[in-house]
């Protein structure tokens, strides 16, 4: 099987994630889309590691996973807090920054 198919998959996943981030309102879904983009990037890293025959890409994907784990912790905490105070998980409701 052609190894570049992994890259196409990665691009598709990333695009789905990016579109989801832009068009969805539910914070949980947006969050999952962000995770999808991170994992698409991880897939690309691993594929490149395979193509180049070294471990650089794999090491980078580990870093991404660690950062993603931290991000999940912080991000979920924020979403839960916002939901508690506003009774809504819509990202459009949390637009107080412009004021």
């Amino acid at each position, binding site marked *: 099987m052609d190894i570049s198919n992994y890259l196409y998959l990665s691009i598709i996943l990333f695009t789905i994630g990016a579109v989801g981030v832009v*068009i969805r309102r539910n914070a949980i879904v947006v969050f999952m889309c962000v995770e999808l983009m991170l994992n698409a990037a991880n897939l690309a890293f691993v594929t490149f590691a395979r193509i180049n025959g070294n471990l650089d890409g794999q090491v980078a994907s580990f870093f991404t996973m660690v950062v993603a784990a931290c991000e999940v912790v912080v991000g979920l905490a924020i979403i839960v807090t916002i939901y508690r105070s506003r009774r809504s998980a819509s990202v459009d409701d949390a637009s107080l920054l412009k004021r």
Partner: protein
Amino acid sequence: MTTSTHLVYLIALPLISAAVLLVLGRLADKWGHLLATLISASTFVIAVSEFFAMHGRSGAARATTQKLFDWISVGTFKVDAALLLDQLSICFVLLITGVGTLIHIYSIAYMSHDRDRRRFFAYLNLFIAAMLLLVLGNSYLNLYVGWEGVGLASYLLIGFWNQKPAYATAAKKAFVANRVGDIGLSLAIMIAFAQFGTVSFAGVAAGAPHASSAALAGIGAMLLLAAAGKSAQFPLQSWLGDAMAGPTPVSALIHAATMVTAGVYLITRSNFIFDASSTARLLVVIVGAITLLFGAIVGTAKDDIKKALAASTMSQIGYMILATGLGPVGYAFAIMHLLTHGFFKAGMFLGAGSVMHGMNDEVNMRKFGGLNRFLPITAITFGFGYLAIIGVPPFAGFYSKDKIIETAFNAGGTKGYILGICALLGAGLTAFYMTRLIVMTFWGAPRWSKDEQHPHESPALMWVPMAILAVGSIASGFLFSHGSSMVHWLAPVVNPSGAEGGAELMKPIVVSLLALAVVVIGAGYAMLKYRTVSVEAPANVTVFTRIARRDLLQDAFNEAVLMRPGQKLTTALVWADYSFIDGLVRAVGFTLGATSQGLRKIQNGYARTYALVMLVGVLALAATIWMVTL
């Protein structure tokens, strides 16, 4: 060349006194006038002792110098602050300190009712210091400092009663007209430096014979412009009449005897320039001839006693300027007339002040008349000044003015005839307007009401200086011309080559008789014409009289030719500044503001929008990198 260590006191004493009076303010009110007068008198004592010391020396040793300090030292350009007292300067120093002291004494009484008398005396001392610096400087740059100093003092004193807006405006007018002349002086100094690499009188004198005629004519013309500004000569004459807004002692000291003659000093001091350039000399005689007639004509139409005297001053300085343009022989006569004029004109101004003192500050001669019975001393001293200015022998003006008329005739050719006839005509006009002034003020029936006016003779503090100046008006002409003493005294400075005058067109006695005849005609006509004077100025007069009353339209001319176009130019420049320069700045601001307003819309607070912007940005960046590396 002798060196001295005490010339500086001449300038330092009055300068320190002025500073003390101004700094102490009201604390010095009680004794300020006494200090100022004492200082002025002490400068006169120094001047007299310097004169006798100079008289005792001979030849080149007569000139005295004192170096004060290195003023400017840039590369090869060096100017010392140094003083030079020579045969020419000492004449001025004696005149300034002598007449200055008399006027200080006079002012003690004249200004006694003014609550700002101390400030007045401070300015007078400032003037004395600046004027002495002007005549004692050994280079054009030192002279320039004094030149500006007397301009400042003149401005302050014309506007001394600046609570009256008209007087403040008169001060401003004098200042502005003087600035135009000052530009001439600074340009002359710059050309001189470019040509000779030095600005000292000695250095320029040494270089002048080798300079190009264009440069010499340029320096001469610029010096003449400077002289015209300071000495109220055509075309910058318009300020002098209005300068009479100042207190009368100021008119006597600054605007008759000393400061306005600074232009004559400047040209005489720069004799090496004018001797080397016939173009410059021609300009000088033209300006002199025009002004002497201009002032005399204006003088015939003025009803304000001080303005009539101011017009007369302008005319007499025209004579001096004319004389300075007549070559090496003319300078001595110019200075001689300057000194005799200093006596009789200062005396007459003080007389006018005395009349005003007795008449509640009335200056309109049509409201005088018959004052000789009430102010006998003033009338007599004024009479001596009158006889001196119209040139009746043996009074001072006879000797000095006839010499100028004679020299003008001897200038040779058509030029000699034109100048001589102008000078002769001026003498006739002088006799006319001065007789008119005397008749209207002192003779005839009183035209004032006994209920309102109580004319009285002035106190001794005022009439003694007038009497001393009257003695000067009688004796000075004979003293200066006896044995050609003035000509010989000044010759080393103004006529070092010993040049002779042109061939005698007429015997001196013929010129004197001609001048006397013209004077008798002028005076006689005035006596006939002004036997009766109406209180109101007659309205049905010829157009010439009307023009003369308006100072020969000098102000109208300045307004139409200089002021209005100047205002238009300023308006246009302001408009251009607003629409183009400001417009550009405002356009930049507007563009930035409008763009920001547009960009503000994307800051809507929605996290999705930011994410989209970021995505587009990253894609754009990636696309750019891809395009570049392709």
